[in-house]
Structure formats: structure tokens, C-alpha cells
């Protein structure tokens, strides 16, 4: 894996701006959704089986995180908690490089490294699901 800072090429997609926009847009939409009292998303897997799916608790983890309850957010869905933290760090970085017009951080992975990353992502997803299944009682209250 090679990590480097380089300038954005002419006409190159500004990924920092794109994903910062998407995350902020998503956050605003979610805030308005809940502020208007619209219904919470229902997990059909949980409705059908009574067991949580791999992403159950992600909404509650986000809400706990925004209330500053880090431990609670972690317990609701560890993977979602880590993703939210990563998004937060990325947004801070993206905002910083966009404001100061600095070089962009890029990583280059070889094919074998990409394969390892894919396998790791699936493993993390499965481990997270195993954790949620072991704590099913949290979602049946």
C-alpha cells in the first residue's frame, strides 16, 4: 500500500467535496426526518426472525453518538460506531483540505492488498453481526 499527498489533477473528481457533501446532506436529511416526527425505519429481518440484522442499532448508535454517549453508541452497533467515527475524521480532514486548498491524501493498493481488505471487511461485518445476535435482547425491548 502506498499513501501519499498529491495535488488534484485538472478535471479530477473532488472526492473530499463529494463525500463531505453526501455526509452533511445525509445528516441534515436525517435530522429533519426525526425533527418532523416521521416514522423510524423498520428492519424487516428483525420483524420476520426476531433477530437483529447486521445493521440493526445503527440509527440508535448515531443518535447516541450525537448525544455524546460514546459507550452507548459502541454497544448499540460497534461497526456502525467505527464507521461514524471514520466518517467524522474524514469530514474534518475533507473540510480542512478544502479550506486551506492543500494536497489530497490518496492511497494506492495492490491487487492482493485489495483482496485482503475485502476479506477483512466481510470478516468485520460477520463479527459485528455475531455480536448483535449475541445481544439480541437489546433489540427486543
Amino acid at each position, binding site marked *: 500500500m502506498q499513501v501519499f499527498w498529491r495535488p488534484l*489533477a485538472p478535471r479530477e*473528481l473532488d472526492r473530499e467535496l463529494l463525500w463531505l457533501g453526501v455526509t452533511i446532506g445525509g445528516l441534515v436529511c436525517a435530522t429533519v426526518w426525526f425533527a418532523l416526527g416521521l416514522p423510524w425505519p*423498520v428492519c*424487516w429481518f428483525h420483524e420476520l426472525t426476531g433477530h437483529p440484522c447486521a445493521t440493526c442499532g445503527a440509527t440508535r448508535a448515531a443518535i447516541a453518538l450525537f448525544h455524546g454517549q460514546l459507550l452507548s453508541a459502541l454497544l448499540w452497533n460497534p461497526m456502525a460506531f467505527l464507521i461514524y467515527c471514520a466518517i467524522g475524521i474524514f469530514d474534518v480532514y475533507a473540510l480542512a483540505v478544502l479550506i486551506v486548498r492543500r494536497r489530497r491524501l490518496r492511497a494506492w493498493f495492490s491487487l492482493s492488498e485489495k483482496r485482503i481488505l475485502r476479506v477483512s471487511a466481510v470478516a468485520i461485518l460477520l463479527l459485528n453481526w455475531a455480536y448483535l445476535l449475541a445481544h439480541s435482547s437489546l433489540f427486543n425491548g
Partner: protein
Amino acid sequence: MAMIHVNRSGTSLGIFSEEDVRAGLRAGRFAATDLGWREGMAQWQPLSQFAEFAADIPSGAPPPSAVPAGATPAPGAVVPATATATVPRSGLPWDNRQTRGFFPAFFETLVMVLTKPTEAFVAMRREGGLGSPLIYGLIGGCFGYIVYLLFMLLVPSIAVLGDRGNPLTGLIGAGFGMVFAIVMVPVFLTLILFIGAAIIHVCLMIVGGANQTYETTFRVLCFTVGSTYPLIIVPFCGGLIAGVWSLVVEIIGLARAHETDTGRAALAVFLPVIVCCGFGIVLAIMIPALVHNTGS
């Protein structure tokens, strides 16, 4: 040895050693107009301006990927930056479905837009009529929605926004309403595509990013919807994935097709949301106040 980053039409081709770039230029894999950057350089430069490659660039030769006059570029191929001014865009596989076959062309386009949106929208033709992209958008969009609605028909109480106390959900889940909904999906989707493209195009004009016609915006929206809406059927969080990815693909598509910057494209896509959210916030503040005043 310093590694050289090579970029064509805003798409990274990778990181190569000096020797690789030299060999690539000789073999025609890289064009003299491709941009290069290595550690220590302030900005990107065309490879032709790298002193060490001067001997490897054939003088007066056309760009390696340029299409001969009168020939049609391979569908899905990325036309180099210099060629875009004179050579028409190669088009998505869907544009060439007569020779490729209907379903292979559909799936190739879908995979290309989902996995390589930048390349897809650099290759997408900006003109050529509304009918062809509309058919693509309707096939992909209707497939995603109808499979989702059929699922709701089978299990009416577990809609994504399931609410057993909601009579509307009950009505939709009753069967007859569902059949009506399924029949109406193509109609509503067509309206959404035309009206949505108009709204986004107006937003693009507002932010100064509309460098092409409404047709280009419409084509971007159709290929985005047709490619991302089938993701709705992914178990667990298909709706979320489809929602987020369609936003991303749409922004990339508008930036590439209108040749505007990502910021303007993102702003154009989010402008309706910003306006609606602003309206929603005002409603959220006003309604409780009105209810309170009416009650007292």
C-alpha cells in the same frame, strides 16, 4: 526511483515507474497529453512536458487512443482528453445494444455506472435522444421498485416504514392497491425522471454548472436511476445503499457530463434537498406553534 502518477481526463491510470511510462508512451498505452505528477512537482503536467520522455513521444503522431476519422469508438472506452474536443464520446454499452444484445448491454452499463461512474460518464454521449436512456432508467428503476413492492405485498406489515396502525399502509398491503401501485410505477418513474431532471438542470443553471443542455442532465439521471435503483432489492439496507450511491453517481455524472466541477454538481443535487429541508424546518417550527396557539 520516483514514481509517476498518470491521469487522463480526470481519471487516475495508476502509479508507474519512469521506465513503465517510457514503455507505455512507446507502445501507445499512454498519450503525450496524459497528465503526470511526481513528488516535488507543484502541479500536474502533460507527459510531453517531461524532459526525460521527449525522445519517447512520436512527433506528429495522433493520440494513441484517438479514433480514426469516421470510425465509432468502442462503447465504454474512455476517450482521451485531447480527443474529446474532436471525437464524439464513445457511448455507454447501452447505446450499442443492437450489436451487443439487449441484456448484456444493460448489465454492462449497470456494472460500469455502479463500479466506475467516472469512466462511465466520461464515455456517456451527451446527445442522442431521450428515448434510449428513458428505457434504461425505466427498466432498472421499475425492477427495483416492483421487486420491493412485491415483497411488501407478500409481507404487508413489514414495509420499510411499516406502521400497522397506518391505514394507508394497510390499504397498499391489501393487494388491489398494490397491483395498482405496481402498474403505476412506470408512469410515476417517467414523471420523476422528466421533472427531476428539470429541477436539477435549473439548479445546475443557478450554480453556474449547466454547460450542456437539459438532454444531458436527463441522460445522467436516467442512467443513474436505472443503475442504482435495482440496489433497493439488496437485503437489510438496500434502500439506504441505493439512496446514497445514487447521490454519489448523480454528482459524478453531472460533473463529468456537464464538464463542471464537483462542487457545483454537488450543490445542484443538494439544492432541492436544502430548499425542502429549509421548508421542513420552518414547518417543524410553525406547526407546533400553530397547534399550541389554536389549543390555547
